[in-house]
């Protein structure tokens, strides 16, 4: 097959495959040159600046002359709380909850302010893992765009009032027979549900309408029909040897990604090469998702073909099981063949397989349930013991509400944790209907499209200021406790509702009324359900300390009672259109719930690697010889992607036009395009306003009332100009392959340099080691090859003037030598580590324009490489950070020795010594060093050096600066920075061990990326300690070192990526 590529050939983008020299030139230029003239209005000096310069000179002269010491204060507590020791972090167990998104967390606070999220390993749901969304929650606490207090909204304008006034106004317009609707996203809190019940008791004509920003409504309906339970069952990906997922992005966004990622990785990690065993994963989808990119086989079907694909798999299994088949539309041949193979695998692993489906079509979900039933998976890999409650929304309900509002049968609507005026597919219809309601109140703490339409805003506390509980899975309880006093004049929504309901159970005289209410609820409902603690106080204290309270349920027996034939009639029918669009939820910003969080906006989308925008993902096609292009109507688009420019396409979907920038996306199916949800917010925190295109109006609603995340009526009207592309895919590349001009030969770019410029450096002529990968059946052969390769590299490395062995003997062999191990098989590319690193190390946010200029500051990036079939490749993610080389090329070239080596093997960076020559970044083979081109943290005197991110100088505000980690220096303009292996944590861990007078152990030092990882892909520790986990990981025969042949002696080892592909399928 022509599409097959040779061994170890990986690529990152089209240009690399299409072009040689041009691309190479572009990637070798580390930073994009943008003419200074573009920036000219920023550069112009105005009168105020002139005065500042004058003032500065005068000030400098005065300081130099008189040297008056400015008085600094040391402010102690008046009454110091016992649990706080200034300078020492305190951790509180809590939960990250946003609608149905859940993660058990520990909140790290310093002097009473939350600064970092860690996973709570006591939770059996998330097991200590976190997500990027959970990591970023601390920044949203200090958002300056939050409502300062309750307010009245008039024509979208907010006027602050008092709580008394809002209470009076709301209670004044409510009467006992008011028809109230409370519109929520999934409510995970059992106590909040009781609050809603109490409200209903006071206002009996109250309806609670729940929907999810990205719906799983059909899944719930199907389970209700098939098993009589309106829940998401308890999936066990760790028990499944064969996984087939129909468009369910269970590693990225679907239901409970942190939980599923941990389970999934558990069955994908290879401990013993000779007895290697791992699951096989088929993903059926059109647009690449995070889950799809990790799959062994991706089965490409158009969005409208999903139903046909599910029916096809159903029929294959039914034939094997001797059950009647259903009538199924035709699915494309390639997909049919793969599905046949999937059916074989599933059947061979009955009871150890799992089929999940992420579409929002009830018929399809019933069919998938039927497939799992035929495979005997219920009770094995799917269980109704402790089912998940993380999606509870029902799409038809909210559509009914719109009708009711239109007919005038709703007197008041309270919006809680939802933003229907943006999130709904028919948000405009909602807005129209909403206007007809007399009393509209939103509890949102942040301005959004819905608050703009409300009469009052009764802002609730931020999560980190709230009391609460959560029940992500039935019987699995989790508490939320405040870690800071409310920053603004907000009031928890539960309390607001109870006050309006005049609940006798709420003691409004109490200091924290809802806390008392919550405690009472737990005493009444939870305490009797356990036997471990004799008194409630003990139980409460321990639950609060642990953060979780879990009750295992017995496996219930369930019987499938779905109507398969009726379901088959309901499935989506393949459309005849030329082009279809799939709308996808991104890992970082969901359907807009996280759009105004700068950390998440700056986190590259793992799939298209773009930041601060949603790009139209168009497929890459290959002519079988040497030419790559965009598919169909997009032919000729994005020819300058590697220069940082995209083309914009004018598209028309179902009669609604828009202009969207395009990104070429490997793995996007021909005849389809993809677009992310969650962008194009019009009312939000500053970071999220008018970024990208809102895709929600293009969503459709099916006959069951469920929202559909695709559209088959797509027209491309043409190009609409160039676009500055903030994509990190071509930034900081290292030794990637390219093509010789005029030839098909795939060569190393450095090799090209050597042959054209006739000079080069050691290591340039070898096939550089960046990604090493294998397929499971050939693992033994691969290990032999890898050994040989590493022997060769070691031989090369021995030919050196650098006295590595001597240093090793003299310095590195005693005390500590820090090292890291990254299992590429466990890394799913979710990006939690990237955000954790930003939070831990005060890494600044730079914004779209700066990223376009290659100026992103991320210390840890996740590189994405493709391999295999050009049109449907496999993906491997590689977290890349400073490798802490023992023979570091950056150190030798620093003229001021600002970067040098420690005896513990750390590549140290002394910011205050750095003069900004950037030689080190130039000489770093891994391209992990970052330069502060501008004053990203706004510590400077002159606004000209400051950087605005979407119209906001984020860190200029003292409120936002509260998120900074006080143990890490805030770097100023003009200095280089990079990953430090979280040296502040190393030092802290060492100190703990010293103070306790014992040897340092693994748990003393864990890096931020390591603790954030949901799958445990990252191991860190002291490689001199024989008992350390990292030493154990270092023993694997699958390990390799990136660019080992260049002899820089890195301290990071990677474990090769292994897939479990059926070889004949490719």
């Amino acid at each position, binding site marked *: 097959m022509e599409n097959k590529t040779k061994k170890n050939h990986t690529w990152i983008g089209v240009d690399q495959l299409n072009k040689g020299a041009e691309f190479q030139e572009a990637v070798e230029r580390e930073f994009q040159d943008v003419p200074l003239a573009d920036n000219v209005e920023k550069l112009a000096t105005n009168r105020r600046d002139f005065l500042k310069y004058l003032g500065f000179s005068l000030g400098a002269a005065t300081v130099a002359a008189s040297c008056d010491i400015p008085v600094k*204060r040391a402010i102690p507590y008046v009454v110091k709380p016992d649990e706080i020791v200034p300078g020492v972090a305190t951790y509180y167990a809590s939960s990250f909850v946003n609608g149905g998104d859940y993660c058990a967390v520990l909140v790290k606070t310093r002097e009473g302010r939350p600064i970092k999220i860690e996973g709570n390993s006591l939770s059996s749901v998330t097991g200590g893992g976190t997500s990027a969304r959970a990591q970023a929650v601390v920044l949203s606490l200090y958002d300056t765009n939050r409502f300062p207090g309750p307010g009245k909204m008039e024509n979208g304008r907010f006027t602050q009032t008092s709580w008394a006034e809002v209470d009076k106004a709301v209670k004044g317009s409510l009467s006992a027979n008011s028809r109230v609707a409370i519109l929520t996203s999934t409510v995970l809190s059992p106590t909040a549900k009781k609050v809603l019940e109490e409200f209903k008791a006071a206002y009996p004509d109250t309806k609670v309408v729940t929907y999810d920003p990205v719906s799983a409504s059909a899944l719930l309906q199907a389970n209700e029909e098939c098993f009589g339970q309106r829940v998401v069952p308890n999936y066990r990906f760790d028990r499944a040897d064969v996984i087939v997922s129909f468009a369910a992005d269970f590693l990225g966004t679907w239901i409970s990604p942190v939980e599923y990622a941990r389970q999934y990785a558990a069955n994908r990690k290879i401990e013993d090469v000779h007895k290697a065993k791992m699951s096989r994963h088929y993903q059926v989808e059109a647009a690449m998702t995070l889950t799809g990119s990790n799959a062994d086989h991706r089965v490409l079907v158009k969005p409208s073909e999903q139903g046909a694909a599910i029916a096809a798999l159903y029929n294959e299994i039914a034939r094997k099981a001797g059950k009647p088949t259903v009538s199924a539309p035709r699915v494309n041949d390639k997909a049919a063949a793969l599905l046949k193979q999937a059916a074989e695998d599933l059947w061979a692993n009955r009871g150890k397989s799992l089929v999940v489906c992420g579409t929002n079509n009830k018929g399809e979900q019933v069919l998938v349930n039927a497939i799992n039933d035929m495979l005997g998976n219920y009770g094995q890999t799917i269980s109704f013991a402790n089912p998940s409650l993380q999606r509870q929304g029902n799409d038809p309900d909210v559509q009914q509400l719109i009708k009711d509002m239109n007919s005038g049968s709703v007197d008041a609507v309270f919006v809680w944790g939802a933003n229907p005026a943006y999130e709904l597919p028919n948000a405009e219809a909602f807005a129209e209907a909403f206007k007809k309601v007399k009393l509209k109140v939103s509890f949102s703490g942040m301005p959004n499209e819905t608050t703009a339409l409300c009469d009052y805003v009764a802002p609730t506390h931020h999560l980190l200021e709230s009391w609460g509980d959560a029940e992500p899975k039935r019987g699995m309880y989790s508490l939320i406790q405040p870690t800071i006093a409310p920053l603004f004049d907000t009031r928890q929504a539960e309390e607001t509702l109870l006050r309006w309901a005049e609940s006798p159970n709420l003691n409004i005289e109490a200091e924290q009324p809802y806390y008392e209410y919550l405690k009472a609820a737990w005493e009444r409902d939870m305490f009797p359900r356990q036997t471990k603690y004799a008194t409630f106080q003990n139980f409460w204290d321990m639950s609060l300390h642990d953060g979780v309270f879990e009750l295992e349920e017995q496996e219930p027996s369930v019987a499938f009672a779905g109507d398969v034939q009726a379901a088959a009639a309901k499935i989506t029918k393949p459309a005849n259109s030329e082009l279809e669009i799939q709308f996808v939820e991104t890992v970082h910003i969901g359907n807009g719930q996280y759009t105004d969080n700068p950390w998440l906006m700056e986190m590259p989308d793992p799939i298209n690697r773009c930041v601060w925008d949603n790009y139209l993902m168009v497929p890459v096609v290959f002519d079988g010889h040497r030419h790559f292009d965009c598919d169909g109507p997009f032919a000729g688009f994005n020819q300058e992607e590697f220069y940082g420019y995209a083309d914009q396409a004018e598209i028309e979907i179902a009669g609604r036009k828009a202009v969207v920038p395009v990104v070429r996306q490997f793995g996007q199916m021909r005849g389809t395009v993809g677009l992310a949800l969650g962008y194009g917010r019009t009312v939000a925190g500053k970071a999220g306003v008018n970024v990208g295109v809102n895709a929600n109006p293009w969503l459709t609603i099916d006959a069951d009332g469920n929202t559909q995340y695709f559209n088959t009526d797509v027209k491309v009207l043409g190009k609409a100009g160039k676009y500055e592309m903030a994509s990190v895919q071509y930034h900081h590349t290292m030794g990637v392959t390219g093509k010789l001009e005029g030839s098909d030969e795939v060569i190393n770019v450095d090799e090209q340099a050597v042959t054209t410029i006739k000079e080069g450096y050691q290591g340039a002529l070898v096939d550089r080691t960046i990604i090493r990968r294998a397929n499971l059946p050939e693992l033994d052969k691969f290990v032999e090859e890898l050994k040989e390769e590493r022997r060769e590299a070691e031989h090369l490395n021995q030919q050196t003037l650098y006295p590595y062995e001597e240093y090793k003997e003299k310095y590195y062999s*005693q005390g500590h030598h820090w090292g890291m191990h990254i299992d590429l098989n466990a890394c799913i590319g979710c990006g939690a580590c990237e955000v954790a690193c930003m939070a831990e190390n005060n890494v600044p946010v730079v914004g779209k324009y700066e990223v376009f200029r290659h100026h992103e500051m991320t210390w840890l990036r996740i590189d994405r490489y493709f391999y295999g079939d050009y049109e449907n490749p496999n993906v491997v993610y590689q977290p890349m950070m400073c490798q802490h080389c023992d023979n570091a090329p950056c150190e030798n070239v620093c003229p001021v020795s600002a970067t040098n080596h420690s005896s513990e093997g750390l590549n140290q960076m002394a910011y205050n010594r750095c003069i900004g020559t950037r030689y080190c970044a130039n000489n770093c083979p891994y391209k992990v060093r970052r330069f502060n081109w501008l004053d990203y943290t706004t510590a400077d005197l002159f606004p000209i050096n400051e950087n605005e991110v979407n119209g906001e100088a984020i860190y200029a505000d003292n409120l936002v600066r509260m998120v900074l980690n006080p143990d890490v*220096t805030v770097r100023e303009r003009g200095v280089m920075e990079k990953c430090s292996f979280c040296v502040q944590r190393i030092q802290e861990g060492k100190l703990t061990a010293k103070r306790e007078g014992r040897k340092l152990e693994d748990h003393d030092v864990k890096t931020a990326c390591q603790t954030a990882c949901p799958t445990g892909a990252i191991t860190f520790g002291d490689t001199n300690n024989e008992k350390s986990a990292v030493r154990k990981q270092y023993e694997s025969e699958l390990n390799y070192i990136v660019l080992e042949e260049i002899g820089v002696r890195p301290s990071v080892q990677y474990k090769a990526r292994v897939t479990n592909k059926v070889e004949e399928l490719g």
Partner: protein
Amino acid sequence: MSYKSLTIWILSLMVALGATTTHAQEADIEAGKTLFKNHCAACHNRNMKDDLTGPALGGVEERWADYPREDLYEWIRNSQALIAQGHPRAVELWNQWKPTVMNNFPNLTDQDIENILAYIHYEYTKKPEVAQGPTGETTSTQPQASDNTFLIATIFVILAVLALVLARIVANLNYMMAAREGQPAERKTLMDILTSKGVVSFVIFALVVLGGYTTVNRAIMLGRQQGYQPDQPIKFSHATHAGLHKIDCQYCHDGARRSKHSIIPAANTCMNCHRAIKKGSKYGTAELTKIFASIGYDPSTDKYIEDYDQLSQEEIEKIYKKWITDEYVKDNGTLDAEGELEIEEQWENIVKSLTTETKTRIQGEIPWVRIHNLPDHVFFSHAQHVSVGKIECQKCHGPIEEMEVVAQYAPLSMGWCVNCHRKTEVKFADNEYYKSYARMHEEIAAGKRDKVTVEDIGGTECQKCHY
């Protein structure tokens, strides 16, 4: 019970001690010291001779000798209970010391109490130290910087004179030579020599070098504040607290052992003692009232004021002026004009001390002035130095127990840090942590190495302090 001569006292005590062995096993002075430090030292003076919050404890056993030993145990564990029972000695003490209530220590065993008593006795009877504690030792460790300026200046002057003389001689000789050879010659005057090209260029050169040297040195000194001794909002005297009363540094600066910060104590820490000691020995009500006004404690009623946060400045003024006035009257008999002036002055001072440009209210934190300012890019941990390195506070902070007003003792420059790291020996043998430096341990065992300094284990590397 009255004191007799020391000899008799010791003899009687020995007898008593012999008797006590029937109550408990042999007492351990060291254990007693620890117990005393943890439980008693906050209120009872460590010299056992002077009263503090609580009475001096020296001779306590003797004072209780008339009663069963158990009574003393009971007294220490729960004094109020014994008072309530009407125990004569207990009531006597209560009358003397009320309303100060002694804390309860129900967890102390008889043996613990015996240990404490033994320590009290040991401390009370031991001979006073001749040297001034840690001060003498630490100051001597700082090498006396000998001042060479005078010597250099003298040499410089001598050399300059010598150069001038030589120049004169050369000029004269030249003149004589020229005169002998019959050439027209002019004798060079001193002025000629001084304004000659050579001298002028030398002077310019010297000025540039000297100026450059000074500029660089001064630039390095920028931001350094050795000797910085700002006025503090409260005239807190370390000499009184740490010197005279020997309160352990870490009683107030309790972060030093476990945090990077040593911690300026919260006002409630002050109140642990100053609820009992309401007037200072030096300033009377003038300084201590500031603490009360910060935290909201009314010394007249011995109560914390409810909703202190809500009070207006006038209401606060009323409360504390009353206290100051009452005390003035108590001391001086009547309130004269001078007294009124004094009270007004004290109050104004309180307001001034507790407010800043940014803090307009009296209530709340005391705005101490920070003396030791490290740059933001320096990470320093007290815990590392105090708990692990076991370094005396005085090593960096100087004779703090002699300072009325604290001044920055050390330069806090990087060179100063690094020099110490080069010299200081690591507590290598007694801390299991350092076991990972196996080779150094071997070298010590083999006699190849006599010590391991902080530098030897990487203590001068950049990222030990800069990250």
